[in-house]
């Protein structure tokens, strides 16, 4: 912070107009690069790698779309898995009634958007913990409803779908990849646009946002819908990809918790945070699972604790703090000291 003051033009050059930061462009390019690298996996990897990375991409999408409501708007939606489940069951029902898959996905997006809108109207009048609890409750209620009414038709809500053809799995992979690319672009748009500024303003100070003319309520509903649609699409893709699932899988509260964790791990409200957080955590998690390590859930719980204590602003913000320009004419010793200071300041300013 002190550094910024030093590097800024002083009174000597008041006419020098400060340039906008280009950080978003670098983030976008980096994000595209990462997705580009992942896109090569079907060529080089075996079928198990394809399976793993398909699921990782699914979690990337879930984290990215949770970021819209949780990261940008700052509303801790703890029931976003509801949209995942709605997506899975809507697409499933469409497939069972012999509709084409793409039509199923469209229906899935529309149903989820409508549900998010109708649900958002009452729950987005709530704030903080009340909002979190309300959304969590809705997701649980939906899971119960789908199980009791046996929506899947296989007993207890279980749904079995026709098997997709074998070469379709590469298609699923690219569908997930395309969806996460779309989410990346939406995220970049949010950091640069009127709509996104409104969401950030709501997160930082809802009253001030309202006083500046932001219709905060409708923007919150909008971001909730925006968050629901990719989540539901991921659910729809998952449904056909997995061919069989039950309410306990697709309405699993653990998925909601994971969306939050992955986003916070990477950095909520940032462009790359959810992407990096999801890739790093899920990859590590799959490696641990396949190596027979039984403490998978312990790792999950531990990382939630570590993130919230030490890095409530996520890894991306920590990196941003590091790559900020140092003061001109500083020696390498100065830079080292300043680097240590920045990390200490970052940690001290965030929680403990």
């Amino acid at each position, binding site marked *: 912070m002190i550094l910024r003051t030093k590097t800024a033009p002083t009174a000597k050059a008041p006419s020098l107009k400060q340039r906008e930061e280009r950080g978003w462009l670098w983030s976008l390019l980096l994000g595209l690069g990462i997705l580009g690298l992942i896109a090569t996996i079907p060529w080089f990897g075996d079928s198990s790698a394809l399976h793993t990375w398909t699921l990782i991409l699914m979690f990337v999408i879930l984290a990215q779309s949770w970021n819209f409501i949780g990261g940008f708007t700052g509303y801790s939606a703890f029931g976003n898995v509801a949209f995942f489940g709605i997506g899975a069951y809507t697409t499933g029902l469409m497939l069972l009634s012999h509709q084409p898959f793409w039509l199923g996905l469209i229906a899935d997006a529309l149903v989820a958007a409508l549900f998010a809108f109708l649900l958002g109207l009452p729950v987005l009048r709530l704030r903080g913990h009340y909002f979190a609890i309300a959304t969590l409750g809705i997701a649980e209620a939906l899971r119960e409803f789908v199980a009791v009414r046996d929506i899947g038709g296989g007993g207890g809500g279980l749904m079995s779908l026709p098997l997709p053809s074998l070469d379709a799995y590469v298609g699923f992979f690219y569908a997930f990849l395309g969806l996460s690319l779309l989410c990346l672009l939406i995220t970049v748009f949010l950091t640069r*646009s009127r709509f996104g500024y409104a969401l950030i303003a709501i997160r*930082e100070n809802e009253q*001030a946002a309202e*006083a*500046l*003319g932001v219709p905060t309520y409708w923007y919150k509903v909008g971001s909730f819908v925006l968050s629901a649609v990719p989540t539901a699409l991921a659910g729809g893709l998952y449904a056909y990809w997995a061919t069989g699932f039950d309410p306990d899988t697709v309405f699993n509260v653990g998925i909601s918790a994971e969306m939050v964790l992955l986003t916070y791990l990477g950095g909520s409200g940032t462009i790359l945070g959810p992407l990096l957080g999801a890739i790093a955590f899920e990859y590590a998690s799959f490696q641990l699972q396949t190596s027979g390590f039984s403490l998978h859930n312990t790792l999950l719980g531990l990382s939630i604790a570590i993130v919230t204590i030490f890095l409530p602003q996520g890894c991306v913000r920590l990196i941003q703090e590091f790559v900020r320009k140092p003061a001109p004419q500083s020696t390498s010793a100065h830079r080292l000291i300043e680097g240590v200071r920045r990390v200490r300041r970052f940690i001290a300013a965030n929680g403990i």
Partner: protein
Amino acid sequence: MSDALSQPMASNSFGTNPSSAEQHNAPLLQLVDITKRFGGLSAVKDLSFSLQQGEILGVIGPNGAGKSTMVNLIGGSLAPTSGTIFYQGHDINRLPPHRRARLGIARTFQLTQPFIGLDIRENVMVGAFFGQRGLNRTGASRVADEVLERVNLAHKATFKGSQLTIADRKRLEIARALATNPQLLLLDEVMAGLTSTEVAQAVELIQQINKMGVTVLIIEHIVHAIATVSNRILVLHHGQKIAEDEPSQVLSDPKVIGAYLGERYAKERRAE
């Protein structure tokens, strides 16, 4: 006095479209018998006053007198228990804050809270985007730069909100509000915590803003500053108006001295 003022406005409240000549004479803002109760406590009680286009109205009073509640009522974050607020002749009682902002009522907050996730220019752009209609990114950015220039923050346009001093935070509050292109600006203690040089700058800034045609309602504890800047001063005490007049009249009013200014202030003034 309040009754006399409220009479001509009352006719406007019934949806009649006042002609432009009438609008010129009609007050920009008028509060009619506004009461706000929080449980058993009346934060504002039977308050009536009006504000003419182009005026600077100062509001003073001891802590807890209801000044900030009054700003919240005008800005729309609180709804009055009874009474009506007219703006440009229209009853705005039921409008939410963002609608009032679009009608041209802008405000600052006593506790400055910049949007720390955005830089200074982007903070101001929020006001431009939502207070004014149909601005694209370039347009909003241009408005923001103009406003930042005016409040002397242009050289810090890419700073983060957390990097600002108190004086700059206050400037940012004003800049955000100005970017909405307001008719009426409500300033809630924008000079609190400033040094005397900064107070002088703030007074000058407010006068400049007023010269551009913005009507100003300003709450302040710094008596000499508010006396300099205001055309009229309204004094609140226990939520009620105890005086409303020109600064020199108000500041020598025994009731005001008793309730707010204190005997020491009165003596100093006499000595001058």
